[in-house]
């Protein structure tokens, strides 16, 4: 399912003294079965954009097309329920939304709300639990007796049980320890690779964006500052740094080292620590490789 925006605009509290333009002329395409990362600092419009992806917000200008659904500023929103089945959003700290007595009931709540019969919902709960890496034993447990990392997985399972085609993730690893973070990011990547889901990841982590995404959108002050592959995005790291954004650690180190040495150690920014190690090794062995 492709998502496409045309001159998308969003203004909070329009025509009031508190009017605030959050999105300005956004034109992006998120291709079918892709992994897209949205980066930008707080207030750049990332979260506002995200809320348009399943019709939580209606544009105040322009339009957004999500598969067959078109949401425009001048038309009343219709058929949103069907849309929301297809685009699942995992908000920040989704475990705060758990509420049922058992894990099974909690996961079933979403699908049953969309009219899935109980038997089917239970089957889906089992599958979803497997996808997030937890065994069936958890079904009968109270979600509130679980650890933070497990609760987050349950909340994500609740979204997966609705069988969305696109999974939108807002800072999904915030607050998790490093191991939990890696496990959850690998899980999303496998959902993308092995189960055909599209992923839209909103993140502060440039490492995650460059490691997992095949496409990155950089938001700045409500506009799209730049979009492209990780290599294209980080091609001019100084630009991003000037905007107050971070670059992956490997690139930051590379810039520092090149400044000290007075020469380039590689003809491109090194997106990972492995690439960087290679560049340093070849520099030490052969000198400049230009």
């Amino acid at each position: 399912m492709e998502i496409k925006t045309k001159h998308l605009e969003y203004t909070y509290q329009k025509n009031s003294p508190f009017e605030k333009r959050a999105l300005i002329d956004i034109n992006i395409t998120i291709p079918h079965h892709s992994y897209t990362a949205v980066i930008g600092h707080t207030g750049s419009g990332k979260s506002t954009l995200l809320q348009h992806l399943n019709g939580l917000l209606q544009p105040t200008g322009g339009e957004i097309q999500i598969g067959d659904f078109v949401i425009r500023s001048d038309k009343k929103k219709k058929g949103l329920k069907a849309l929301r089945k297809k685009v699942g959003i995992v908000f920040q700290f989704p475990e705060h939304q758990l509420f049922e007595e058992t894990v099974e009931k909690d996961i079933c709540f979403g699908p049953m709300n969309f009219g899935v019969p109980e038997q089917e919902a239970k089957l889906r709960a089992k599958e979803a639990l497997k996808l997030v890496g937890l065994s069936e034993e958890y079904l009968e447990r109270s979600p509130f007796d679980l650890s933070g990392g497990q609760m987050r997985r349950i909340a994500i399972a609740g979204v997966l049980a609705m069988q969305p085609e696109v999974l939108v993730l807002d800072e999904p690893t915030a607050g998790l320890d490093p191991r939990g973070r890696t496990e959850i990011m690998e899980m999303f990547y496998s959902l993308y690779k092995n189960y055909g889901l599209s992923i839209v990841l909103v993140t502060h982590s440039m490492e995650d964006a460059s490691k997992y995404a095949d496409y990155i959108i950089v938001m700045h002050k409500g506009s799209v500052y730049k979009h492209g592959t990780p290599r294209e995005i980080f091609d001019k790291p100084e630009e991003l740094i000037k905007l107050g954004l971070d670059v992956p650690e490997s690139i930051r180190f590379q810039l520092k080292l090149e400044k000290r040495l007075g020469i380039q150690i590689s003809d491109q920014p090194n997106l990972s620590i492995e690439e960087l190690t290679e560049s340093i090794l070849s520099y030490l062995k052969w000198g400049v490789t230009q």
Partner: protein
Amino acid sequence: MNNQIVQFKNVSFRYDTDAPYALNNVSFEVFEGEWLAIVGHNGSGKSTIAKLMNGLLFPEKGDIYIHHLKLSEELVWDIRDLIGMVFQNPDNQFVGTTVQDDVAFGLENHGIPRKEMIERVHEALRQVKMSNFLDQEPHHLSGGQKQRVAIASVLALRPRIIILDEATSMLDPRGRSEVLDVVRELKKKEKLTIISITHDLEEAARADRIIVMNRGEVYREGLPEDIFKMDEELIRLGLDIPFTTKLVKGLRDNGYDIPKDILNEDKLVDYIWKLKQNI
């Protein structure tokens, strides 16, 4: 720096009588004026330590001393005056409608006279470099700014100890370094004791000393350079290795004998530069 300001003596705690111990026979000290980082995986007991320190929870076994006061129901309010806490989510700790109202809130609760209150609010906001935001609404601030205001609210009450409980984990990299820079300066200028509870090892690297928690026990204690030498062991504990340490390891694995105790990027840059001169 050898004055103990916090002491945990054989402290055990569990949330429920049939739950496993969240803290099991934990002993450690914090010295006045130091920055101590407590790191550990989710559920290792680090946040429980924070809650015990200011009497939000009480130990089942063992004793806790804060500034030589033994933590007890009677003294809990005196102890809370010594400790300021900043939590994870900047949006959950605002009560005022403007930045200065928010900082004044705690002072009002303490019945501080208006004139002194105004002075303290201004001073605290100056200390965290937020003087230009007195009348701003908190929700218009960035995450880093919000956390700095939260720190100011705590500072205005003049505590001896500030506990940062995952206080930077929801911030973007810029916000994180804003907050940590302010904390470093406060520690230096105001001689505050800082306890930061975190699983961000880059944040821990800024501390004077690190305690590693694992499954409710103190696993290791040491200087950042000693802790980061633990290498793979940290990963087994659910943590990570700082970037520079990883890079050193990669180069060592390829036959370059780079000293393991290079922990900081600038030193590694220098080392590589020198290495090339000598080849």
